[in-house]
């Protein structure tokens, strides 16, 4: 990351000259004070301040978990966490970006692991050090019950781990705050992988569709599409069947 002071200066002056109502706030990034526009997310504020982010940034939509960030706000002793693309800046906010938090991932191939009760202990024995302080849950930007899926992992309950950790973005904030030095999100990933490998029912419609493709059901259609030019393709694309969002049937539990 490097500062581009010139851009910062020009940007600020541009805004000031064109719109006098623009409001600015102070943020402290890595200890240094910056004046940035009010109402930006942390990520945008950093870019506004002139930083070019190459790591610690990803989809900008709150899905990839790459932009985990820690910060403190004015007058509060507590450390807060969030995704930089989703968290709005406040005046006198102290922050830093975490490009990556060191966490070693166990090496395994899904076909070779055995779904026994000590599955998690074999690859991540440190989960037994859990103090049950619940800090991992308090920092999780997805509000997952991290401590309880670690408890399920201690018992070897693969399906519960997969269930409780399903929305994990792998941002690594849990691992950054754990006093027992557990790497929760890797444990959860092992759980979800072994769940889908050993416990989930194989999806029948997928194998059916693969069979259809292999038997050449769609060959003619694709060949005719290949021959079309761009304009004709655009017409077909705009006229395609779109399933209206409201009419999607609610998902039923398959038990």
């Amino acid at each position, binding site marked *: 990351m490097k500062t581009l002071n010139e851009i910062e200066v020009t940007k600020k002056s541009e805004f000031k000259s064109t719109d006098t109502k623009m409001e600015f706030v102070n943020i402290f990034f890595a200890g240094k004070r910056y004046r940035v526009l009010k109402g930006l997310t942390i990520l945008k504020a950093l870019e506004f301040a002139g930083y070019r982010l190459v790591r610690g940034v990803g989809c900008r939509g709150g899905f990839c978990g790459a932009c985990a960030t820690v910060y403190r706000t004015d007058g509060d002793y507590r450390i807060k966490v969030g995704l930089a693309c989703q968290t709005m800046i406040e005046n006198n906010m102290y922050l830093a970006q975490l490009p990556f938090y060191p966490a070693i991932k166990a090496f395994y191939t899904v076909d070779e692991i055995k779904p026994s009760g000590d599955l998690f202990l074999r690859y991540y024995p440190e989960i037994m050090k*859990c*103090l049950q302080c619940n800090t991992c849950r308090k920092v999780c930007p997805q509000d997952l019950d991290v401590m309880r899926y670690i*408890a399920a992992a201690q018992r070897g309950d693969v399906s519960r781990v997969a269930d409780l950790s399903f929305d994990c973005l792998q941002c690594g904030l849990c691992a950054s705050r754990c006093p027992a030095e557990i790497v929760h999100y890797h444990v959860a990933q092992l759980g979800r992988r072994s769940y889908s490998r050993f416990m989930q029912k194989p999806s029948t419609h997928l194998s059916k569709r693969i069979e259809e493709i292999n038997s050449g059901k769609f060959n003619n259609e694709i060949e005719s599409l290949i021959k079309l030019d761009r304009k004709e393709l655009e017409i077909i694309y705009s006229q395609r069947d779109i399933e209206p969002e409201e009419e999607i049937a609610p998902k039923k539990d398959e038990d």
Partner: protein
Amino acid sequence: MKLLYYPGCTLHTVAVQFDQSTKEICKQLDIELIEISDFTCCGGLYPQTTENLMQLQAPARILVQAQRTDPNLELMTLCTFCYNTLKRTHYTLKKDEQKRNILNDYLEEPYNAKVKIVHLIEVFRDDIGYDTIRKKSKRSLLKGFRVAPYYGCLLLRPMNEIELDDQEQPSILEDLLYAIGCDVIEFPYRFDCCGSFHVVNKPEIAEQCSKELLRYTEQFHANCLVTCCPLCYYNISRFGGTDFNFQIFYITQLVGLALGIEPIKLGLDPEIINKFISDSYLV
């Protein structure tokens, strides 16, 4: 009757037969068990340091979970480690308001210190009653079981905090075993240590303790040992399995047999049980 049920980690992993047999006998005795969802470990042991409240967080959170699930129900546990830890935590937090306030600052929901923690054998004694159990049992079936009741260290101690039975002269296990028709042996070594957690890093200590215990059991002409503790069960069955000709049972397995539940549903090998039962006819 309804009970909240905290199985703890072992009852879902190494001591499944304990969990299984409990659920079977509760079905027979009309006890509805409501399992606490997504529980954590209780911590395993009550902390030895008096001022380190952080270690009380885990058991306190389980008590809070029980209080949230249903404040009017008793919380039942089976594993003696869980029972001891939860009960002592409750005792400390009930007695010491200052400690409770400090700990409540760290919990997501404050603990009101009103949950009652019970062991299943306590439910048998106080709520169901030995008379009912005696009436429902096929008492002749268990004549061949010359049982040495084994309390271990944690079920009764410390007496003023646990308040289950006298810590030197208890009778709670014996009374239950009499009620279901076992041949109970006066067993003076019922509090001896099985080696406990030494099995993790110094297994030779646990081996020595367990084998000694089994030798005594043999001297007292018992053919089986009955316990409430998954760790005692683990140590004794691990180190005494081949050298000694007898069985170790969980108390619930024997109660289940007496209530006429099939051995296989109690996590027992039917062949072994048949041996015990035919023995009794020979004697």
